């Protein structure tokens, strides 16, 4: 991402299991979890079904605009894998009223920056602008929803761009290569097995007809949630939005994803031999959907395992036994049950068998013995502090509102999050560990250093 140096977040660097003194005072010591200004949020649904959420915040003279479109690689089939992501690129490449290049040129000349991202579930378009450019940006955003066009020459050059993106993040990255294979192996039926960037042969061969069909099906206003946070007056900005967007015609909803992943009945394994110095281990467990009420408990479980230097996996595998150099986790919390991931990076010539055995022992321990009150309290406080950190920027607010509105059952739930973490009990966490972190429910990915292996 050439122009955005800002958003790298450091892993939280701390934790441990020693009982802190003020431990059970956590509830009493909670700061006021009322979010300042949240009562000023306004939300409307336009006549064409588009959802609009506006949160005024006058701290800086700027606006963060997020358009969440409910389409991702989950909506793809063989032959068009990667199309949702490619489409995200094509949304910047011309309409019947603006030739290719105009969107970025006009936006940047107005002092605004943009980006977009695609996941299994959604495609999100983002603009960060000075308040004076709001009218310009709304006009351009509405135009590309209404009038998108496909220039065959641009399709070809953008194909090259996307392939370069794939080489960067997957083909030249051992971590990316392994993750792609594990994800594809974990799902036999559900399209969550499709890599968001697309399989190479599909990147090379999708056609303009595929794009047109995709646009007509998914880029309907009734499939979009527009979130604006920043230096705006909700009433007048909603009026502006109506003017630009409300006449875009509603479309029939896309076919629902019917396929449910059948229950996994035994561990699956993927092996990659690579020209690598550092081996990798990845564990992907079938998990829960973003709207599942157990999500806060799952988040706390993963924090207990990997958040910071005192977390269980870090402490045991990295610090004490030195079997790994990093332990981390990620939860796919989308429309359908996705994967809960745990990752280990090993040192050069690392002991893969030893690391996996130590990992298994830690997982078994949490499944049989559960978690301590101190650990749970620590994870809660980490979640609470991260909640506040996210809400410190207009960008973070727009991202949080949108993800709760689209994927987690309503934007209001964002403000329940501190309370929801508070409600999670040690028993809830243990139950989830027992249910999800079973060997027969997982896919294990192993990346070995081929050169080192052949020498042995």
């Amino acid at each position, binding site marked *: 991402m*050439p*122009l*955005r140096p800002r958003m790298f*977040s*450091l892993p939280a*660097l*701390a934790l*441990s299991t020693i009982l*802190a003194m003020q431990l059970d005072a956590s509830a009493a*010591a909670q*700061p006021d979890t009322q979010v300042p200004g949240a009562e000023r949020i306004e939300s409307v649904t336009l006549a064409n079904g588009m959802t609009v959420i506006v949160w005024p915040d006058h*701290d*800086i*003279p700027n606006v963060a605009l997020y358009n969440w479109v409910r389409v991702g690689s989950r909506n793809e089939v063989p032959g068009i894998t990667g199309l949702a992501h490619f489409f995200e*690129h094509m949304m910047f490449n011309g309409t019947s009223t603006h030739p290719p*290049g105009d969107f*970025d040129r006009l936006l*940047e*000349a107005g*002092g*605004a*920056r*943009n*980006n*977009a*991202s695609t996941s299994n579930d959604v495609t999100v378009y983002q603009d*960060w602008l*000075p308040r*004076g450019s709001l009218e310009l940006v709304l006009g351009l955003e509405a135009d590309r929803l209404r009038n998108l066009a496909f220039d065959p020459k641009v399709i070809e*050059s953008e194909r*090259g761009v996307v392939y*370069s*993106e794939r080489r960067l*993040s997957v*083909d*030249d*990255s051992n*971590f990316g290569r392994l993750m792609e294979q594990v994800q594809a192996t974990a799902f036999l039926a559900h399209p969550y097995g499709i890599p*968001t960037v697309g399989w190479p042969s599909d990147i090379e061969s999708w056609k303009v007809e595929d794009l047109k069909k995709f646009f007509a099906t998914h880029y309907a206003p009734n499939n979009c949630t527009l979130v604006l946070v920043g230096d705006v007056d909700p009433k007048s900005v909603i009026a502006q939005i109506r003017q630009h967007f409300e006449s875009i015609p509603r479309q029939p909803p896309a076919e629902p994803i019917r396929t449910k992943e059948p229950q996994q009945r035994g561990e699956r394994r993927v092996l990659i031999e690579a020209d690598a*110095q*550092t081996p990798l281990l990845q564990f992907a467990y079938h998990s829960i959907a973003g709207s599942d009420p157990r999500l806060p408990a799952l988040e706390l479980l993963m924090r207990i395992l990997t958040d910071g*230097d*005192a977390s269980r996996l870090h402490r045991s595998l*990295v*610090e004490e036994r030195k079997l790994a150099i*990093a332990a*981390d986790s*990620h939860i796919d919390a989308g429309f359908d049950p996705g994967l809960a991931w745990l*990752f280990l*990076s090993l040192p*050069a010539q690392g002991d893969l068998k030893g690391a996996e055995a130590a990992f298994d022992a830690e997982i078994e321990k949490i499944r049989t013995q559960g978690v301590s009150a*101190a650990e749970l309290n*620590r994870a809660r*406080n*980490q*979640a*609470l*502090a991260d909640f506040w950190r996210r809400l*410190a920027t207009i*960008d973070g607010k727009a991202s949080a509102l949108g993800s709760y509105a689209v994927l987690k059952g309503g934007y209001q739930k964002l403000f329940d999050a501190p309370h929801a973490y508070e409600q999670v009990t040690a028993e809830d966490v243990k139950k989830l560990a027992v249910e999800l972190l079973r060997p027969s429910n997982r896919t294990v990915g192993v990346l070995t250093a081929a050169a080192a292996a052949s020498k042995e």
Partner: protein
Amino acid sequence: MKRMWSRPGRNVIAHALALILVLIACQTIVPAKADDAGVHVPPFERVQLDNGAVLLLMERHDVPLIAFNAVMRGGALTDPAQQSGMSQLLVHLLEKGAGKRDAFAFADALASVGATIATDADTESTVIQGSFLARDQALMVELLADMLQRPRLDQTQFESLRARQIEFIRAAKDSDLESLTGIYGKAALFGAHPYGRSVIGSESGLAGIAHADLERHYQEQYGADRLILAVTGDFQTASMKRALTQAFNGWRKAAAALPAVTAPARQTGRRVVLIDAPDSVQSYFWAGNVGVARTSPERASLDVVNTLFGGRFTSMLNTELRIRSGLSYGARSRFERLTQPGSWQMSSYTQTDTTQQAIDLALSVLDQLHAQMLDPTALESAKTYVQGQFPLALETADEWARVLADLAFYGLDRGYIDGYGEALDKVSSDDARRVIRERFPTRDDLILVVIGKAAALRDSLRKYGPITEMKLSDPSFAAK
């Protein structure tokens, strides 16, 4: 993503590569962007303790958080030549036990209250950043004071951390080649000058550091006279000042003098460093020369011109390498502005077969910059863009903590922020042309670094200049 498609688990790489990623973040400490829409430095209080420590305090009450940014003068500049990575290793070790807490107790104390502390070195400083809930401010002061004044520097922790740092570099070579071009690039550009040192160290540099060396480094390079501590957020200035004064006014000064750094010489002619990554499918390239210092009075003109050339999506460089040709996912350029002139660099990547085509194109874009009369519309667009994005980097307590510390570090006054919009407004076509002529190298004066499949690239790279070859697995970032 339009630029970087979002993949779950990216944070894992970030974890393994925290060193490298943070390096990038730190180089952008002060926004190279402009003000217009009324962004001014909010009121803050500056206190200098008798021992030389500088405290900067700014209240921000929008969310119940406090951020601090503790900057120590020194950084990689002070790394012994054969022990690159010393400063980085030392600052990481500070939280592996300090004061009454061993490493686990320290980590637990932080996490139990949801706080984070991040440590990092840069070319001429080391930095500790913290984020705490407002209710935990006493603990925050205690932990920071312990890290700086009473670190345990435990030998076992030292050995395990040193080993891990070496492995992180190996992991980056396996999964993130793009992040490494600048490290090879600066080593080649600056040579023996301290700005050429790899902040993260190298496999051989880290391996050469003994525990006693590190203890000595702490005594020599850490002390109150080196410290600038900015604290921002939800607190009362009077009580915070009292707590910090009490915590820091007893600290000694650093035992050694800060090394003087001379201005590095601009390079003439062109040479090539080729790093062989035999398994890679893309080539990652970087071309640069010596640029300008942080205090350069041409800052606004340089920001505008670099934005046009390689600092935004529609920049000349990205337009050619990505938008028109589809050769790459991205291309960009930037200045690194330090006490003395740092690097100017442009970088991109493309599949192995099109490496020469992409490098030729990048050089021809540089030719265009030098040859072209600047389009006044483009100049205005770049000025508006820089202005419009500026406030977005000055929003949170931690951003203000970084800015306050940075201003103090470089001896800049608030005009650096408050007056930037006006400075941008004043940038004329003549100013732009002058800085292009004087500050941007031509295609003939560049250090070119390429990481890729050497067997396929070697012959085609000869035309750019004499080639020095290295292997990705070599334990140092500098050619022998």
